[in-house]
């Protein structure tokens, strides 16, 4: 079980020979590509480029078989449980209908689905969104404030430690601060078409997405339990989450939806659905100043220039021009938003 093998730039030979003799390249590819990557290539995902870092994270079965201390295993299991059933923190840290694994498919392991191990080996690092150096805990805290429309567990708390332990476990064997670009990192967007169509996006959404996510975008919560995540509305991520950027949503959709049929939508279709979905309402961005135009001006350059925040909506209204915070109301404020760091260093 060498599932967590990390392969560095081992596709060089395959790629070079691919242009010369197709038959040979297949044989070489079969030898060099991990089976999981072969599966992806077979589904239409790009093959790893020369020099890319390909990391296959370990599974929970690998964890059981590992030599880690039993208590360490317990904590990693707890992190996995929080990651895949984040709804257990509902009303405490989570105020919408999402789990971490709603967007990070394959329990955070899956390439092209923002695999989370990458954060464990590239952080601490500078992050434009909050203009300072973030570590893994602060990065996860951001997900709670925006994607979960909530407020994060405290730094150093049991839940935060368990979540970071799970991330780090998935990174097992990957180099820290890698120089190489990471294969399948984030939600790589397809090329943006010249025109995006709201009407086409709506029709495509109804045809391809509504069976699970519902025509009104509410997803499905049945008998008090999470089934399908809501792409918009009060149960969804708020206006500050990464997925409200249209290119990020297009990348998520193209690479992951409909579930089980990745890469089946055309680039145009993925972008149109993303545009439609991103033009619907959702809870306010926690960075809201009280004025949508002012908020857009302040956070446009680093974020909202990619979203539809403050733009004209489908019915002529201004999107996000409201003080609806979703289920968390105006009492719960994510404590991490706007928290500065290294002010003295920055002043130098």
């Amino acid at each position, binding site marked *: 079980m060498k599932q967590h093998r990390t392969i560095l730039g081992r596709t060089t030979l395959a790629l070079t020979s691919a242009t010369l003799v197709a038959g040979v390249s297949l044989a070489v590819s079969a030898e060099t590509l991990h089976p999981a990557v072969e*599966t992806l290539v077979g*589904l239409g995902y790009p093959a790893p480029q020369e020099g890319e870092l390909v990391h296959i994270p370990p599974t929970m*079965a690998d964890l059981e078989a590992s030599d880690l201390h039993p208590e360490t295993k317990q904590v990693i299991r707890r992190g996995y449980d929080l990651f895949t059933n984040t709804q257990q923190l509902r009303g405490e840290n989570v105020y919408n209908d999402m789990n971490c694994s709603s967007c990070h*498919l394959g329990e955070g*392991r899956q390439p092209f689905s923002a695999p989370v191990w990458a954060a464990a080996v590239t952080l601490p690092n500078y992050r434009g969104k909050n203009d300072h150096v973030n570590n893994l805990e602060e990065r996860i805290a951001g997900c709670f404030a925006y994607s979960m429309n909530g407020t994060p567990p405290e730094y150093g708390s049991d839940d935060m430690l368990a979540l970071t332990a799970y991330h780090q476990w998935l990174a097992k064997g990957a180099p820290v601060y890698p120089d190489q670009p990471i294969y399948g990192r984030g939600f790589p967007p397809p090329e943006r078409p010249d025109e995006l169509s709201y009407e086409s996006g709506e029709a495509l959404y109804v045809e391809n997405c509504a069976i699970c996510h519902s025509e009104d975008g509410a997803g*499905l919560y049945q008998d008090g339990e999470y*089934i399908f995540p809501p792409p918009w509305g009060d149960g969804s991520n708020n206006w500050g989450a990464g997925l409200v950027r249209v290119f990020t949503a297009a990348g998520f959709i193209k690479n992951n939806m409909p579930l089980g049929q990745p890469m*089946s939508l055309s680039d145009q279709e993925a972008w149109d659905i993303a545009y439609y979905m991103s033009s619907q309402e959702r809870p306010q961005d926690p960075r809201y100043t009280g004025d949508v135009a002012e908020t857009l001006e302040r956070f446009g350059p680093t974020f909202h220039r990619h979203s539809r925040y403050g733009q004209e909506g489908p019915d002529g209204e201004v999107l996000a021009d409201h003080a609806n915070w979703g289920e968390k109301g105006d009492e719960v404020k994510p404590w991490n938003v706007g928290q500065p760091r290294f002010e003295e260093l920055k002043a130098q």
Partner: protein
Amino acid sequence: MTSKRISGGLGLLLGVGLAAGQAMALEGDAERGQAAAGTCVACHQADGSGMNVPGGESWPRLAGMDADYIAKQLHDFKEGRRHNASMLAFANMLDDQQIVDVAVYYSQMPVTAAQGGDVDDDLLARGEQLALRGDWDEYIVSCKSCHGPRNEGAGSHFPGISSQHAGYIESQLRAWQADERSNDPQNLMGAVAKRMSDEDIRAVSAWLASQSVASE
């Protein structure tokens, strides 16, 4: 690929349009359903438990299944979107009103236990993995991601598969693999079934059959 997806989508629209349209127009009645279900009990049993028939054609449990799902399947048999010689004959004996009646009748029965889950631990462990976590290295998404947290079903489109007979689940997954069954919405089941090995199918069918569903 695209044309397949679109035709799958059209099939869904047609199927749901019919089933949902009639469900709205016609109200099911369990008592009438019991009267109309006289021919069903020979295979599906009086308590709706069906029967696991190793090596033969297993009869699915209907007890506790979603009424709209049952109704859609009956319409699909009648209208050629799902193929089974016995069910074609029996579904043809039911009119639209009787279909919603028997659907409601069976949906109200308590879920019964399933057979075929008595296999070795390794196979069960693989089945549990596929049902609850999937195998993403093969791009097999978990059963529960559509069929609900305990695989007891989600909405009207995704049927409960926990405590269903192993023989039935196996035969359906094989039918999807062979394109003999394709009345699922948007090929959602077909796409996943085609990535499963023979052992995967046996494993997940046995594990699901070994699960019990608590009555409400």
